[in-house]
């Protein structure tokens, strides 16, 4: 299998800087990853860590006041080197996006059938209205909207949150893209509905062999469907590996902190541990390791954390397991 077929999405040294009145703010600072066909990469981090910017950058949907560097290869084509016109050919066709808030992301003035059909017709200009509508109903059925033909005539506000998110997904997969970016797709939903929507995404990934990037802050979601995980902090990946690497042998204090602040039904009676301090953002980035002001292990390493930013280095576990921490590969975190 050709490399671009096996890895429909390859991001290399992505950097996104925003020009603001206070100067340049770096939102994403040297992020690299690739996603294999039929696999799910979860990007995990707190708000402001740069995960949403990363996901938008993959579609080339970054505001004009930002400069984006590096490369984003979608089936071998570099999103950042293409013209806007060429990008529009890929968007929605080879790479699609599901947004967090479906109520805000759907057009309130158009029926959902129309919106899904329009998403199809953008890339199939020869299709007539009827064909596009039929395709839209198919897509709505594929994401589990009951009575899709009737519901296609309704407006977004007539749908429940979970159903609306399914409509959003139908819009994204109607052209059978190779890559699907899901930006916090379940955050706005009830827990029970969350599981259903995740299941829909997982089924579609399997059936269509999509490479999926799931942006989330919810480790429960990660454990359910991710194959690989990248933990993002302050515009960097601080740890990445398979889902087993991350859950069984977290090697960055920040990952450990995230795990400890997630409820675990088996750890009966144990109190949740919050990570102290506030997340560093692009405009107020600490020197050295960006996590050092909040890190419990910084005294163990000493001065070095304050002056030198650690690079991603190999860690025990799977071949892909990497962490950016001065503690080194031998130190096992509890």
């Amino acid at each position, binding site marked *: 299998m050709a490399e671009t077929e096996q890895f429909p999405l390859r991001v290399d040294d992505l950097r996104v800087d925003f020009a603001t009145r206070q100067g340049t703010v770096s939102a994403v600072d040297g992020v690299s990853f690739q996603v294999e066909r039929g696999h799910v990469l979860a990007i995990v981090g707190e708000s402001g860590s740069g995960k949403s910017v990363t996901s938008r950058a993959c579609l080339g949907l970054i505001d004009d006041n930002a400069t984006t560097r590096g490369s984003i290869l979608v089936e071998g084509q570099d999103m950042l080197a293409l013209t806007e016109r060429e990008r529009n050919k890929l*968007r929605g066709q080879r790479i699609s996006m599901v*947004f967090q808030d479906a109520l*805000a992301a759907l057009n309130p*003035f158009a029926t959902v059938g129309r919106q899904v059909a329009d998403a199809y017709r*953008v890339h199939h200009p020869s299709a007539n209205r009827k064909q596009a509508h039929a395709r839209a109903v198919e897509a709505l059925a594929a994401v589990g909207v009951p009575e899709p033909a009737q519901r296609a005539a309704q407006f977004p*506000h007539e749908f429940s949150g979970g159903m609306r998110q399914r409509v959003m997904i139908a819009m994204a997969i109607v052209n059978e893209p190779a890559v699907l970016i899901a930006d916090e797709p379940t955050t706005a939903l009830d827990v029970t509905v969350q599981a259903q929507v995740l299941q829909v995404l997982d089924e579609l990934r399997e059936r269509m062999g999509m490479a999926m990037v799931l942006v989330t802050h919810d480790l429960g979601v990660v454990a359910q469907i991710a194959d690989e995980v990248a933990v993002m902090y302050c515009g960097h990946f601080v740890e990445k590996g398979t889902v087993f690497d991350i859950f069984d042998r977290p090697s960055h204090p920040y990952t450990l902190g995230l795990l400890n602040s997630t409820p675990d039904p088996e750890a009966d009676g144990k109190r949740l541990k919050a990570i102290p301090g506030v997340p560093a953002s692009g405009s107020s980035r600490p020197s050295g390791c960006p996590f050092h002001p909040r890190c419990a292990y910084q005294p163990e390493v000493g001065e070095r954390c304050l002056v030198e930013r650690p690079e991603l280095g190999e860690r025990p576990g799977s071949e892909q397991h990497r962490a950016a921490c001065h503690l080194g590969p031998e130190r096992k975190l509890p």
Partner: protein
Amino acid sequence: MVRFIVRRVIISVFVLLAISLCVYLIFYSSTVDPARVICGRPCQPERLTQIHQLMDIDKPAFAQWLDFVKGLFVGRTFGTGPSAMICSAPCLGYSFDLRQSVTSLIVARLPITASIAVGGAVLALFAGMASGILAARHRNRLPDHLVRGSSLVLLATPTYLLGLIAILVFGFWLNMVPVSGYVPFGESPVEWLWHLVLPWCVIAALSGSSYARYARNQMLDELGAEHLLALRATGASPRTVGRTARRGVWVPIITLFGLDLAGLLGGAVFTERVFGMHGIGDLLIDGVGRHDLGVVVGTALFGAALIIAANLVVDIAYGFIDPRVRRG
């Protein structure tokens, strides 16, 4: 939808009645006796009483108002015999000064006011929309600064000042357009247009600048809205994205437009005065000057009715444009 419209119409009628009562009471509490104005000098007490009776203002204010409301539906007659003054329904009052019913006065002047109002409002709408969207598209660059700067200056300019400057520059100095007066459309469409160009431009500049500011901000909101980002994520062309964004701008702008148009139709007081056009606004101002109670109450109520009707139309239009209102 039908129930919604019926309910709104019923409410509107009550609002109008309340407004007419307020206008009545305000004018009734004035110290000037309208009968004395007509009576002339010297004015015998017997004659004054006679006139009071003729005008139906020898009763308490509330009873007078009831007569007025009745007149709206069935008409009224003042006096008896051959000299009786008949005011047929809908009777908005009677001007004893002008010896005409207010309704017929308004109807006679409506073409003038309508010509000014409709042309000015439509021009304002399109000029404002175009410049607002232009500004939003070039945010923080030269076109945006120009639109924002000039609209701010225009918003702060009184109508009469801008009107007088326009007359001075385009009428006297450049001698391009007539400076005053109105020619009916039926008489000469070209002259009609020629006389209206300047008032239209003045209204367009003034109302248009508030549209422009509103449209600019609304367009920026729309362009930043998540559903537009989602639309771009489907690969939609910039044209489609622009069209979708503009649709979101039209909705609130149409509301402003409806109310503005109604306000102008009720009488563009300053514009009519400055350009020497005897429309409804002119009628109102003259009526106030002469203490002509009938004219003042009638034209004020007419203006209020237009605004309420425009509100109703806008609300119904909203129902058609926005599906969330329709079923809500």
